[in-house]
């Protein structure tokens, strides 16, 4: 969301835009910015932004090739099972949701015309008229009821079962009206419905070898682990429809290979490039970068019910021993924002700005470890490629520990099976949490006493009651107050150290226009296919 570069102000943005209008070359612009004291590695991001601000009118036609970072035989067209970025991209192209989040994180209507509630408990969803599926069927309330109910059926294997569970009843009022009843009031429902898993499929669909949705593209080819091809849907309900004639999407897991494919012109979009590739991409003409900080983070979990996390002072010591600035600068090359040990990112309006990150203070950490009687002991820390950057973070902690006589034994384990074997289980391990649209979802999934993924086994009855109280409040200011206090509780009491929020940088061909940042993630919250166009 935010594009923070030190020493860079709105006035500088204007200067660059003016320079572009005057026809300045890229080299001149770089000199301009270097003179202004902006690091060269960051300047590409600014160019990209200034460039998109000058975007021309969309061009119809053309075919786009784009690459994500992962793809496997587990790729799916079933929105309920979607788990990787590639799945989200496909779902966004072939299906629609009731709502979607705009670039400021506010829910907007898509298949729904309106979603209203008086008490935040019983919600009335009115559907848009005249929307058709790819096979010609007209969208009706039965499709929405079917799509929602699937998440409640264990046999579906829905990823959002734990969130969908609060919908106690989903029923059709008439052909275009659905009533959703919640177990407890929840003012966030429109935002929840914007999650990728809540895409609407046709009533009775069980076969997901081809996609039958209402989306801007029809599914032409779907080969799991290989590629997907979408063709422009001529009958799309949004006026104008997609700009592209077709798009092809696949995963190239190798960081360098993905960037190289973009530089050679084989693809026009390379998602999530490695921070260290920026210097390379910068030096090439015809490529721009798009940065998003959406609240994805890699965190160090210390279980409060196991040694050493149960020793008073240990967790606080680790939080002071994590050199956040070094993690941000060296491990992530600036593509991160220093975090304050709680999961609500600055991209959210509920982020507590007054809660400062714990300072890097090895002496204080040493005193705390001494008090806990842990100095000199070897403490295992489990890290894996599965949790992005965790090995680098572990090594930075390890080195800081060496200097005060603490021995952290970094154990690199396979990414294969990491989530079922080590995550939540080892006494001290890393996790990686994807962005969620609301603090309520984050807290209920990760910090409530009965949370399914309570990473550090943090239990606080006070926290639980605050969570329920805030959920039913339609008054945003009051909610913010409660959420602020909850963030302080997490930062001080939970065993989860969150050193930085990670940024995502997509590299795109300068010919690709219309890509904007989105709080749901990179590639425009994975929905780029519908909105972008290719300049001739």
């Amino acid at each position, binding site marked *: 969301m935010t594009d923070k570069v030190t020493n860079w102000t709105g006035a500088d943005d204007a200067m660059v835009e003016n320079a572009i209008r005057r026809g300045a070359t890229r080299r001149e612009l770089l000199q301009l910015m270097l003179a202004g004291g902006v690091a060269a590695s960051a300047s590409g991001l600014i160019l990209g932004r200034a460039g998109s601000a000058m975007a021309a009118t969309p061009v119809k036609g053309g075919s786009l090739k784009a690459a994500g970072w992962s793809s496997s035989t587990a790729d799916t067209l079933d929105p309920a099972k979607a788990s990787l970025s590639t799945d989200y991209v496909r779902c966004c192209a072939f299906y629609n949701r009731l709502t979607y989040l705009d670039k400021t994180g506010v829910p907007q209507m898509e298949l729904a015309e309106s979603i209203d509630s008086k008490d935040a408990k019983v919600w009335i969803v009115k559907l848009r008229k005249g929307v058709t599926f790819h096979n010609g069927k007209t969208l009706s309330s039965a499709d929405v009821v079917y799509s929602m109910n699937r998440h409640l059926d264990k046999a579906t294997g829905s990823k959002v079962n734990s969130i969908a569970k609060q919908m106690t009843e989903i029923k059709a009022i008439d052909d275009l009206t659905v009533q959703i009843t919640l177990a407890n009031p929840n003012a966030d429902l429109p935002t929840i419905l914007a999650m990728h898993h809540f895409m609407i499929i046709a009533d009775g669909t069980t076969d997901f*070898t081809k996609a039958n949705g209402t989306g801007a593209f029809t599914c032409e080819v779907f080969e799991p*682990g290989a590629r997907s091809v979408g063709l422009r849907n001529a009958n799309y309900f949004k006026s104008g429809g997609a700009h592209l004639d077709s798009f092809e999407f696949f995963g190239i897991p190798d960081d360098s290979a993905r960037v190289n494919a973009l530089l050679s012109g084989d693809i026009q979009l390379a998602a999530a490039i490695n921070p260290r590739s920026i210097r390379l991409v910068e030096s090439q003409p015809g490529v721009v970068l798009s940065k998003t900080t959406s609240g994805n983070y890699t965190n160090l979990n210390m279980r409060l019910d196991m040694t050493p996390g149960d020793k008073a002072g240990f967790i606080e010591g680790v939080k002071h021993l994590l050199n956040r600035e070094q993690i941000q600068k060296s491990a992530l090359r600036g593509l991160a924002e220093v975090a304050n040990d709680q999961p609500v990112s600055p991209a959210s309006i509920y982020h507590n700005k007054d809660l400062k990150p714990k300072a890097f203070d090895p002496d204080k950490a040493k005193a705390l470890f001494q008090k806990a009687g842990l100095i000199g002991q070897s403490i295992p820390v489990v890290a894996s490629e599965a949790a992005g950057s965790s090995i680098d973070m572990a090594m930075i902690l390890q080195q800081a520990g060496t200097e005060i006589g603490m021995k952290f034994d970094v154990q690199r384990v396979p990414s*294969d099976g990491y989530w*079922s074997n080590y995550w939540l289980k080892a006494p001290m391990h890393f996790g990686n949490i994807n962005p969620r649209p609301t603090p309520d979802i984050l807290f209920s999934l990760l910090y409530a006493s009965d949370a399914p993924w309570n990473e550090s086994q943090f239990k606080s009855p006070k926290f639980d009651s605050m969570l329920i109280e805030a959920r039913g409040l339609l008054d945003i200011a009051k909610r913010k107050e409660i959420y602020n206090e909850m963030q302080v509780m997490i930062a001080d009491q939970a065993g989860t150290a969150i050193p930085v929020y990670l940024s995502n940088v997509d590299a795109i061909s300068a010919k690709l226009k219309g890509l904007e940042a989105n709080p749901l993630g990179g590639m425009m919250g994975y929905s780029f296919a519908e909105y972008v166009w290719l300049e001739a």
Partner: protein
Amino acid sequence: MNRHVLNLVLARLMIAVITLLIVSFTVFAATVLLPGDVVEVLLGQAATPEAVAGLRAAMHLDDPAIWRFIQWLGGIFTGDFGISYANNMPVADLIGPRLANSLKLAGITTLVSVPVALTLGITAAMWRGSWFDRSVTILSIGIVSVPEFMVATSAVLVFAVYLKWLPALSFANEIHTFGQLLRVYAMPVITLSFVISAQMIRMTRAAVIDTLNTPYVEMALLKGASRKRLVLKHALPNALGPIVNAVALSLSYLLGGVIIVETIFNYPGVAKLMVDAVSTRDLPLIQTCAMLFCIVYLFLITTADIIAILSNPRLR
């Protein structure tokens, strides 16, 4: 002689079936031993105990693993390789197009690398100790000691990013002319040839030199045979056994071992499929891939053994 070979082939076929069964069971046992199952992998971070139980029941994974294995085994005799757990598609459909891709890549690589490697190995042996021999040694070891991902990435950087002569990705489905074929396969084939040639060059050289030292070849030398004749006529046939074995071992790498090339060039083949299958604990897919690799491997080494026997009159 022919009958001897025929008997050998028949015996090997029978043993091959047994080997396949053993490998199949070992792979099955290994997969079951691995922590985590397909349901936990599919649900990932969303794998709460009740969600796991629900999906496991829905996917009929509650039957004992050994029973599912026996069912799968029974299925292959009727030509049914089962349904992938991960995406509900028939395994045969998943493997089919990718196997064709893999075989194409392996075939082209074989055609390119085997003649070159054998020629280099034999000539190096012929002029053993010369500058030519030494440079072949240093080059072949130097090349094979560069990690595969580095060879591939360097090639892409030079030929695709800077020179823009070749595409960085290999889209096998976009080949219509011979020129396109060359462009698409050039880099993957060169990378793979780098990897597998060293073994063939070195082993050929060593085996030929070794036979040059045998009394029988020394005799020919005394009789005044030329160096070329000595190597081609006398040493080579005797060295053929070890050479074809080295070739077979090298080629066996081309199906299951090319994961890096498949990943970097985005070439959908069976190696990536197998790695995916292991990651998702997709038993029918793992089994079928493992069988496939095993069959190819057995075919290669059995061919090597037969050539070895035919080339040595004393073994017939």
